[in-house]
């Protein structure tokens, strides 16, 4: 998205480029395939509605991730009462191209983290956002991003250790 196109063109382009990344961000943060799919739809409808208000002071992808985050937060609040209802079968609804069992195992490990930690891990280690961009998307300081990531990784390593009886 180089020059600012109209909302329809921008929505189509951003959808084509990033729908799966938005899906993964939502899915790994919320731990639910169907909620993540709903969020993809909601995010791009919000893009269409709000594109005219996008001033272009950040990269459109960063703006898109900020919208995604707001949708995730809204959804997480709604899901608060129904915690831990995600089923194994539901997660299989998403396609995993190779080694599905390994991916599900890693996803289980991810789900042992808090939502903040899952978000940081997804953005920094799965989607390769820089610390600066991650801080911008989450509305945090860079030091909070680093600390949260460090704690998350420590917890994941400990989880792995338990899993293999180390």
């Amino acid at each position, binding site marked *: 998205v180089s020059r600012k196109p109209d909302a329809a063109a921008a929505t189509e382009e951003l959808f084509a480029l990033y729908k799966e990344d938005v899906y993964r961000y939502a899915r790994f943060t919320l731990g639910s*395939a169907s909620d993540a*799919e709903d969020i993809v739809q909601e995010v791009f409808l919000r893009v269409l509605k709000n594109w005219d208000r996008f001033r272009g002071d950040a990269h459109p992808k960063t703006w898109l991730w900020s919208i995604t985050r707001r949708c995730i937060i809204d959804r997480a609040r709604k899901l608060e009462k129904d915690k831990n209802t995600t089923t194994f079968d539901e997660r299989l609804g998403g396609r995993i*191209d190779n080694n599905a069992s390994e991916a599900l195992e890693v996803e289980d490990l991810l789900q042992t983290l808090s939502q903040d930690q899952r978000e940081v891990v997804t953005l920094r280690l799965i989607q390769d956002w820089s610390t600066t961009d991650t801080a911008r998307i989450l509305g945090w300081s860079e030091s909070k991003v680093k600390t949260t990531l460090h704690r998350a*990784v420590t917890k994941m390593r400990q989880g792995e250790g338990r899993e293999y009886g180390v």
Partner: protein
Amino acid sequence: MEYEDIQEKLSALRTVRMTPERGQQIDQVIQNEIQKYQARGRWRVIGRKLGGVGSAAAAVVVCAIGVGAVMHIHQTHVGTTTNYTTASHGPTTTVPISYKTAQLTQINQVASAVGVTPMIPSQGQQGDVLTIIKNGGKGNLILNYKTFWIIESTTPISEPQGMTTRKTISVGVQSGTYFSNSKNSFLYFHNNGIYVAIQGLQVGKRVSEQNLQAIATSFKSVQ
């Protein structure tokens, strides 16, 4: 990089994707909203051009154009009515679909939230049951069955792209438009103020024209 070990483990998650069926649905909902957005934009431009002293007159003209546009879109959907195709070219293999009271209640609740007067098919293909009721955004209700899914919308639904067949067929006493290509098939029709699109949900398994026609003809209001 101090997190290389974890990052390598997490790399298994980089290929997780949405199901193609749901991706297709979302795409269609967004295309539909884009079409509405573009229509609103055209009317705003016309309104501005005709604005100023004659704004009241402009509003009337814009409304007239709006009605005309909707009528035109609807006309485009149904095409001419002289070449109706009936289901006589192949067997219809639909079976009754049953609904639980809780499902009907849920349909009514979601439909009410999005502002759609809901209708449901009483016929489907072998094994069809209602699996998902979704809020497709304002004015759009989505119903998934095992082998097909439905959008019910208060505004015209954008036509599918890349179709090789497009023809007018009868849907009860009314008409609809059947679209197909090698991968999927669609039936669009308008009933009781609601625009309806039915399409196959299983990739590579088209719903036959006859079955789409029978499913569409079986639509009833939700009691």
